[in-house]
């Protein structure tokens, strides 16, 4: 974990309630795909954990949905504003297990952390497929960004207003070597049942500190209690107690 004062360089609206924020100043921090950052937002007591969409050189990219007071205030940040951010939080995805044809599955604002993962896997010469699931056309984002990386990208919408109609589980390919998933709990539990290989899930939980001190975000796993912020947020399929 490192503390950095980052400067906002760009804000972009992706959908009615999803925003992309670019920040600069991560310096020597080494941020891994699947890790998150914890932002101090003025006048709010607790920091807000947000997954890393991309980290490249000095630049950090975050994509978040406005769901409450914290993200609403974050939306109002402008270029040149500074933010106190704790970086290098959480474990990140295990890239050594990807195999040659990894499958990335994201639902809604579960999509962003898979972008950095996709970019890294492509950089390692893997054949990456991504399924990006949304409710409807106006909520879709990042299809083009994934395609530009060279990722075979499938978009699904529940109402069929864009891409393939249905859930991400309706679009699972026949063959893949390993999977990485991030999204709402019902989606991830469905994937837990329907995926045919091993894989990893990135979880979300309300956090106090975000760096392992308060035990606010613990879950039970097959290997005992784990902190989503510290031993997670990425957990292997084999460790989760989702069989019920």
């Amino acid at each position, binding site marked *: 974990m490192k503390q950095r004062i980052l400067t906002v360089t760009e804000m972009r609206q992706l959908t009615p309630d999803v925003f992309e924020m670019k920040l600069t100043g991560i310096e020597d921090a080494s941020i891994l795909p699947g890790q998150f950052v914890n932002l101090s937002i003025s006048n709010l007591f607790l920091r807000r954990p947000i997954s890393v969409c991309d980290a490249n050189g000095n630049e950090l990219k975050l994509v978040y949905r406005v769901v409450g007071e914290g993200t609403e205030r974050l939306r109002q940040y402008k270029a040149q504003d500074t933010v106190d951010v704790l970086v290098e939080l959480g474990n990140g995805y295990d890239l050594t297990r990807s195999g040659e044809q990894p499958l990335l599955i994201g639902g809604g604002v579960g999509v962003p952390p898979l972008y950095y993962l996709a970019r890294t896997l492509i950089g390692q010469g893997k054949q990456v497929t991504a399924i990006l699931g949304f409710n409807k056309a106006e909520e879709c984002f990042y299809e083009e960004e994934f395609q530009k990386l060279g990722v075979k990208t499938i978009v699904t919408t529940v109402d069929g207003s864009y891409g393939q109609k249905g859930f991400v589980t309706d679009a699972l390919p026949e063959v893949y070597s390993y999977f990485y998933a991030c999204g709402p709990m019902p989606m991830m539990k469905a994937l837990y049942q329907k995926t045919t290989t091993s894989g990893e899930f990135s979880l979300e939980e309300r956090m106090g500190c975000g760096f392992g001190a308060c*035990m606010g975000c613990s879950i039970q796993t097959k290997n005992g209690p784990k902190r989503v912020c510290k031993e997670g947020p990425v957990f292997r399929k084999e460790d989760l107690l989702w069989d019920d």
Partner: protein
Amino acid sequence: MGRLTTELCGITLDNPIIPASGTFGYGYEFAQLYDINMLGTFSFKGTTKDPRFGNPTPRIAECAGGMLNAVGLQNPGVEKVIQEELPKLKEVFHKPVMANVSGFSVDDYVYTSRRLDQEEQVGWLEINISCPNVHGGGMSFGTDPDCAYEVIHAVREAVTKPVIAKLSPNVTDIIAIAKACEAAGADAISLINTMLGMRINLRTGKPLLANVTGGLSGPAVFPVALRMVYQTARAVNIPVVGMGGVTSAEDVLEMMMAGAAAVEVGAANLVNPYACQKIIEDLPTVMDRYGIKHLTDIIGIAGKE
């Protein structure tokens, strides 16, 4: 003797700053950020006889000026703390540490206290009779003077190290509880633990915390904590460790002026992991501003004629 030096139950502290139990784990997360040996000491995660997972999530909520937690004493149990956590702690922290003990019966408290009393690294036993997030134990011991007396007396008889009774603010008469602990042989009192509160999720209309209620901490509770430290310090003849919403060196001075011999810092560590380091670094400058030569000079001055 430095300007910040103080003493707690016969043990010298380089400064009065003590990260509070439950906000500092067993120290390693923070040891990666700064040299935690600069602290007076720290109170490690509340430990019980048996391992506990604690409450379901969500365990954390926020409010203006603070937060609610309903962790529910998650800890690996005293044997694992002794076998795994304390040896790791020894590598990064070389001062006596404060062991925080919780339980669900007098026997539990005695068992856990006795086990930790035998550990060389443990300097004090802070007996948590004030956890608001567990049922059938914790706070129920700290809200009745007779129960408080019984637990503290039993622990005092069973151990050799200083016993600090950690009190709950969720009482009508803090003085009665504090005096019962003093009569039971407590070597010091620490207060306040968190204040019972709740939040409701507007979307669902249901409590935000899975446990329904949780403990409020952070700057929002500071004036309440200060008042209770003041009242307690005037009522007992043992040292008082003040805590509750302390965030700055200025807050530390207020706590000490109210009567605290040392000061615990809790929720501030969670939002700024460097909070205690900063407070310790800021203290001399802030003391200069108010003409304070030595911290011990100001203990309890608010209540003196």
